[in-house]
């Protein structure tokens, strides 16, 4: 019998997973109607019954309640198996599911939350991952709507049972709002936007300690929304009135700077299919043979009016979520920096390129060897160094951007940023990613201004990496470059100063 779960293109092989649950349903169909058998199934039968019920719930909306009752009656594992089967449906089949099945999927997800099923948080994360950044298609906006409604509707329950999943949702919806607030509005999008704003504001205003779990990338996402009044207000409080958030111990925004963001959050913005392709590219494709793969990836995921905003998410994923083994690093497989170079070159819009460069350097700004991972900052360094022979413009643009960040990213906490970048350079040299900064400092084609700034960093490198010393040098270098000293500022100034990088670009 043809699948009621997924659409299969002509001349496409059957999906083995879909086949396994469909066959279970076909085999057990007669047992899926009341009265249900009272016998206790053995493990093999239990597995088959779970598969059959899953197929029934998803493909027979009119019998869904019967199937769920059946499940409640037989369950002996806290729904762990059923939820893991659902997660697999989302991961492997979501894009091919019929619309009616997608409706059922949301319905059964809510059921799983109601019974506090084991692993329902993972199910929610897998659904969040199916929302594609930069995609304004009806199907994608529908999923945004369903999920944001679910997170608002099940708020209390989620807060009590699996509060961390709310932080993943916040990361997702803040990122999506950047899309949804940039585009010209239409009534359909407006409704969605309001719900997304409601959810994010509720999180930030009421559950800030949960928001802190995201770490520094929370700031990066919020910056993209400062043009929206409610977020501007939140931003001002973050900068000027941290006590507004009623979170003991949160005294300054720089505390967030020092919290490295877990790769879990970056993964929420990459669909499993993108992840598979990117990881394949970075583990199997030799440098020099990547052109066709890049073209296929771009055609599938990056073409379309707003799709290129995904590049920012992908760069965060590559830097922080995909760390190759030493074996791969020493092989002829395409390195991460080369893929990032290609992605940067693929940016057509200025705001995307700026955000992509910020994504690449973000961990540099707050780098602290004791909490940060050198693998997160390695791609930017290698991209700058390896671009010298043939793409000096790339080296130039990146270094220039980095120093622009040092000067403008947060004028009131310039010492923090300055220290972070210096520590990043020092660690990269110390750990042998590059032998020294000479390769940049002695580069003939690099501008004298950039070389001068690098030299200042190099001087520091030789010195003792002692915090007092660092602070001293950082003040010294600020004087050298004749930069305006931090001054107490009004609320609006604080915002515009922290927003400086965007204005400067």
């Amino acid at each position, binding site marked *: 019998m043809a699948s009621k779960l997924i659409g299969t*293109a*002509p*001349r*496409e*092989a059957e999906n083995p997973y879909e086949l396994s649950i469909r066959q279970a349903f076909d085999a057990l169909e007669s047992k899926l109607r009341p009265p249900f058998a009272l016998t206790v199934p053995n493990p093999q039968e239990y597995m088959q019954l779970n598969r059959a019920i899953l197929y029934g719930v998803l493909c027979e909306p009119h019998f869904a309640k019967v199937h769920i009752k059946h499940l409640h009656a037989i369950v002996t594992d806290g729904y762990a198996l059923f939820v893991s089967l659902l997660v697999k449906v989302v991961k492997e089949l979501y894009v091919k599911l019929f619309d009616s099945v997608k409706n059922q999927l949301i319905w059964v997800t809510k059921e799983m939350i109601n019974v506090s099923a084991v692993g329902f948080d993972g199910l929610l994360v897998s659904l969040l991952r199916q929302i594609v950044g930069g995609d304004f298609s009806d199907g994608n906006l529908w999923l945004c709507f369903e999920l944001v409604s679910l997170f608002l509707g099940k708020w209390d329950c989620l807060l009590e049972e699996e509060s961390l999943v709310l932080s993943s949702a916040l990361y997702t919806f803040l990122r999506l709002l950047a899309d949804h607030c940039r585009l010209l509005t239409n009534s359909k999008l407006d409704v969605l936007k309001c719900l997304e704003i409601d959810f994010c504001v509720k999180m930030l205003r009421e559950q800030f300690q949960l928001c802190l779990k995201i770490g520094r990338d929370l700031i990066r996402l919020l910056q993209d929304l400062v043009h929206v009044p409610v977020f501007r207000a939140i931003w001002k409080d973050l900068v000027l009135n941290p006590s507004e958030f009623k979170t003991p111990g949160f005294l300054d925004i720089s505390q967030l700077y020092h919290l490295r963001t877990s790769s879990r959050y970056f993964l929420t913005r990459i669909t499993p299919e993108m992840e*598979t*392709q990117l990881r*394949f590219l970075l583990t*199997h*494709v030799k440098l020099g*043979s990547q*052109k*066709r*793969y890049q*073209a*296929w*990836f771009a*055609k*599938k995921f990056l073409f379309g009016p707003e799709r290129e905003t995904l590049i920012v998410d992908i760069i965060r994923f590559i830097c922080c979520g995909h760390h190759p083994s030493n074996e791969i690093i020493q092989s002829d497989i395409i390195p991460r920096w080369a893929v990032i170079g290609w992605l940067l070159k693929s940016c057509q819009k200025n705001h995307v390129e700026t955000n992509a460069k910020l994504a690449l350097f973000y961990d540099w700004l707050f780098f602290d060897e004791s909490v940060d991972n050198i693998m997160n900052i390695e791609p930017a360094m290698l991209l700058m160094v390896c671009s010298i022979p043939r793409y000096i413009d790339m080296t130039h643009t990146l270094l220039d951007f980095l120093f622009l960040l040092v000067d403008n990213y947060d004028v009131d906490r310039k010492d923090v940023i300055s220290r972070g970048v210096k520590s990043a350079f020092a660690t990269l040299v110390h750990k042998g990613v590059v032998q020294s900064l000479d390769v940049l400092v002695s580069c003939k084609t690099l501008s004298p201004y950039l070389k001068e700034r690098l030299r200042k960093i190099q001087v520091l490198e030789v010195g003792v990496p002692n915090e007092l010393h660092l602070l001293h040098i950082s003040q010294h270098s600020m004087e050298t470059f004749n930069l305006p000293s931090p001054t107490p500022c009004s609320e609006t100034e604080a915002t515009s100063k922290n927003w400086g990088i965007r204005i400067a670009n």
Partner: protein
Amino acid sequence: MISLKELSPAAQNNINTKFIVLDKMKTVAMEGQNKTCLALVADETAAVHFQFWQDECDAFEPGDILQLTNGIFSYVRKSLVLRAGKRGSVQKIGEYTMAFVETPNMSEIRWVPHPNDSHNKYVQESVISSHSRIFPPMP
């Protein structure tokens, strides 16, 4: 299952293999209702020209991983192509995640009958071109 490097021309529908589609030409209508489309396909060992037939022409795109069952590698109007033929079939089994090489190209090899073989076996005589002359490698 054989790898593409093991292909040699034969009038037999017995080739089972797996490959990734690298490139595809425009579909051309042959005499009557028939459509064909030439493609470059490859696996980890070699590349070859593949001739899609009828609805196969629109069913597959570059980046698709295909499985060929009971296919045939033979001359069609003087050019050497792999195809499903009347008795074989070709199905999409995945996308993207397959490594490939573009040389040698089994369609760009001059084959001659085996000097002392009665079963119409062919052996490689010379390489006409290291890469496909129809689908040049991406710069």
